[in-house]
């Protein structure tokens, strides 16, 4: 039945693309169908499926996931309080006049707001709403503004301390624990802060390159008089923008560097925005009520993906699919680079149909433990995964961010011009990916000597590795609970 799980994953991809139904519905339906087939076929006793409620309760009490609605609330309040708008307008005024200014300002806004949007899909929705009318009014051509919004929407995938990085850090911790236990290595297990630190330099490199590309690509665009140029910028706007930038940089920087816990940082930011909105009178009930409804809906969107992914992952484990993939990866011929490239290719292909969260919760727990058995540098692997996700989201014609954006803009973007507009950004992104791939040391900048204990693997036979790996990833731990035993 292990191969049935592979079929199930292919059906999920086809279902998402062909039906247009929400991805979480497809995941739930696939999990239900897979579980029913496994039980009817006698492969899996129904009692083992009883692990699902315990796994869902784990999600409901997960400390890290508490950051999710808080980040979303911050993002929605920044939008409703027109802080993003003020930032964009002040940035336009500060930059030299020209068609490049709105594109560069848009990317800057994406880097500030991206970490709070939760997912690429949510970023596409919020940034297309905030940026598209302004870029259009400034005369930026449709392919270039589509490319710029798509790139800005994926910045949250690589810029710490986004939710994507927080959740990948958690998934990496589990995968690395399995790998370290399996191999007997003496590595320090990776944590979320390691992922933040590792992503900082590559994210900074890509952001700088993207700003340069945006500037060069749009400098020859005929200048329209931007709407902002006709709107006077008040001292209040400037004060708001300066305070917002300082607060965001302090808050996000504090979380990224480990001085502030993600949940407490997000709660403080959301509280500060709520208080500021109430004190300035901008957040009366007619604004706050719909904003809270939007926060709840976006939170539910993200949480639904976790529920769907958790259900499907359980079924894949019970069918033996995770073990099948693990065996295959552990036995793959070639060195570290071959196995890393193979796993990145799997993740890259998944990113054509799945958002970052689904990949972190469905694909990562299956492919990364065996990869980390072969490759000791977990921080390097984590950053490569992030960059691969970003490139796949941007790859035409099926890149997830592009597909979402084309649906959101309600305007047909011809493929040829879009590819030409995206190409310089993609080249910049691939260059950063290649640099990280070739120079793992770039993700360890500033790391204290001896912080990552990387001793040579102890002598564990391949048979032992296989046995331990299967013990670690095959049965869900919850099924040993007395209540759930057959």
């Amino acid at each position, binding site marked *: 039945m292990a191969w049935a799980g592979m079929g199930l994953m292919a059906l999920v991809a086809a279902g998402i693309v062909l039906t247009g139904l929400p991805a979480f519905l497809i995941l739930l*339906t696939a999990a239900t169908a897979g579980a029913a087939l496994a039980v009817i076929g006698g492969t899996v006793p129904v009692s083992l499926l009883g692990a699902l409620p315990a796994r869902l309760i784990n999600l409901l009490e997960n400390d890290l996931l508490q950051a999710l609605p808080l980040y979303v609330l911050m993002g929605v309040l920044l939008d409703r309080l027109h802080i993003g708008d003020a930032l964009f307008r002040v940035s336009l005024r500060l930059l030299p006049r020209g068609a490049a200014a709105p594109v560069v300002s848009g990317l800057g806004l994406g880097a500030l707001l991206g970490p709070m949007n939760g997912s690429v899909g949510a970023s596409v929705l919020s940034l297309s709403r905030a940026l598209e009318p302004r870029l259009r009014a400034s005369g930026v051509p449709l392919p270039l503004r589509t490319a710029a919004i798509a790139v800005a929407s994926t910045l949250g995938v690589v810029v710490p301390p986004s939710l994507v990085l927080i959740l990948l850090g958690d998934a990496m911790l589990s995968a690395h624990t399995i790998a370290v236990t399996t191999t007997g290595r003496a590595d320090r297990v990776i944590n979320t802060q390691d992922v933040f630190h590792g992503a900082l330099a590559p994210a900074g490199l890509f952001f700088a390159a993207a700003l340069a590309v945006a500037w060069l690509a749009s400098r020859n665009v005929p200048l329209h008089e931007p709407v902002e140029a006709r709107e006077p910028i008040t001292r209040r706007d400037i004060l708001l923008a300066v305070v917002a930038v300082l607060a965001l940089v302090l808050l996000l920087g504090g979380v990224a560097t480990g001085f502030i816990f993600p949940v407490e940082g997000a709660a403080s930011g959301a509280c500060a925005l709520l208080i500021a909105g109430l004190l300035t009178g901008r957040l009366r009930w007619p604004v706050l009520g719909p904003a809270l409804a939007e926060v*709840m*809906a*976006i939170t*539910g969107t993200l949480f639904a993906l976790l529920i769907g992914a958790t259900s499907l992952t359980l079924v894949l484990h019970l069918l033996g699919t995770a073990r099948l993939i693990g065996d295959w990866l552990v036995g793959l011929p070639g060195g570290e680079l071959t196995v890393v490239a193979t796993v990145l290719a799997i993740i890259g292909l998944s990113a054509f149909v799945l958002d970052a969260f689904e990949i972190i919760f469905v694909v990562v727990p299956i492919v990364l433990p065996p990869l980390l058995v072969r490759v000791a540098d977990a921080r390097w692997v984590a950053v490569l995964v992030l960059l691969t996700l970003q490139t796949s989201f941007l790859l035409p014609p099926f890149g997830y961010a592009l597909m979402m954006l084309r649906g959101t803009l309600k305007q047909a973007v011809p493929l040829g011009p879009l590819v030409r507009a995206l190409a310089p950004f993609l080249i910049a992104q691939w260059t950063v990916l290649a640099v990280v791939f070739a120079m793992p040391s770039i993700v360890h900048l500033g790391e204290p000597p001896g912080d990552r204990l990387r001793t040579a693997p102890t002598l564990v036979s391949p048979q032992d590795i296989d046995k331990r790996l299967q013990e670690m990833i095959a049965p869900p731990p919850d099924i040993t609970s007395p*209540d759930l035993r057959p």
Partner: protein
Amino acid sequence: MILSRVIRVLDGLIAGIMSFGRLLALPVVLLLFLQWPLRDLVQAYSREANDLGQWLFALYVAMAVTAATRARTHLATDLIARGYTAPTRELLVRAAALIGVLPWAAFVIIAGKSIVVSSVLARETFPDTTNPGYFVVKLALWVLAGLMVAQGLVDLFRPSHEGET
């Protein structure tokens, strides 16, 4: 006729729950923020704030999934399906409710019965702090699945001419 009335009542009930549920974001934010000054300045009640925030968070996200369904914010890839006719899309939604959501949610309610009921009856406390209210986290599982069943039934039996709220 009776069915459509039942569905309308159910729909209104869910809408009321969602309207209340969105307000939970405020105490969740406040409590999760307060745990910081309570821990570092007051040096007391931080764990209490965290525990209270935790069970409110569990209830909040349990309701949020259905809120997303009603607001149609679930992430979907619409590139091919946008060409489908309205009846085809409606059929797909009903089929997904029938073969995906309803069996899944019903299974969660049944399989989770022993965990939820024993926790509620024992008024289970938080394992680390013994603060009260941990049973609400487990009860939230039934809230999640129950609301999904209710919304699934609304989606399945809603007359085709009605839009979603």
